[in-house]
């Protein structure tokens, strides 16, 4: 059995699907962030797979490094916001944060 591009793409696609499912169904704000991390990892895996099998060079890995940088900053900012929301509302369940609802 030869492992090719399609195998890596399938892993990336299923990982993306699980991340999407997590983002759509979770109520806990930290749980939603976990889904975002899954989606970012799936995209990064696709970049590296395409670079290895199709494009050549290192540009795919460069993009993956930027994805990791952005994911780290996103996690830091988002978790700081989650912390502040918890201090103000005593809950981070997304369906209870309804102050902005008209």
């Amino acid at each position, binding site marked *: *059995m*030869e*492992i*090719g591009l*399609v*195998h*890596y*793409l*399938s892993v990336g*696609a*299923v*990982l*993306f*699907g*699980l*991340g*999407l*499912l*997590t983002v*759509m*169904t*979770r*109520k*806990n704000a*930290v*749980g939603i962030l*976990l*889904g975002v*991390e*899954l989606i970012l*990892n799936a995209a*990064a*895996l696709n970049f*590296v797979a395409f670079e*290895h*099998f*199709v494009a*050549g060079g*290192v*540009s795919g*890995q*460069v993009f*993956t*490094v*930027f994805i*990791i*940088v*952005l*994911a*780290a*900053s996103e*996690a*830091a*900012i988002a*978790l*700081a*916001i989650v*912390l502040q929301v*918890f201090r103000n509302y*005593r809950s981070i369940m997304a369906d209870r944060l309804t102050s902005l609802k008209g």
Partner: protein
Amino acid sequence: MPPLSAIAFLGLAALTLGSAGIVAFSKNIIYSSLALLGTFTGIAGLYITLSADFLAATQILVYVGGTLTLILFAVMLTSRIEDMKVSNPRAGLPAAFGLVTLVLLVLGKVATSTPWPSEAKPAMPSTAKLGHAFLTEYLLPFELGSIVLLSAMVGAVVLARRAVKRAWEKG
């Protein structure tokens, strides 16, 4: 007996997707966060099979060492002990399942029906080439990335700190 690379790929893919399944379906937010460890490690292993050794090390360092620790801190600081049993509830599962199935069908169709000009290459270390690319062709984005990290760090500190009013501050 299948070749070693196929066994490695299948094991790593199973680790990645199995842990991602726990992240998506566990009722306890702590189990979900800790299962992210398996996903990140599996992805790092897949990077190694794709000859991206520097990325594998970065994945472990940044995600497992940094992001996961941060997420665990956030979980511990925000989940109240008494509702720990169902700390990660769900809503709208059937609709989400339908949409995700649709997305996966489209992705699978694209991935299998497009004739990618792919060729199997031998696994080669690529760290030197990556470093060279960062210091020549991608120098400006690299520096911008460090500015993004700095501003994100400052922003996170400003957002997360508790505002303490000194005695001489009004209002």
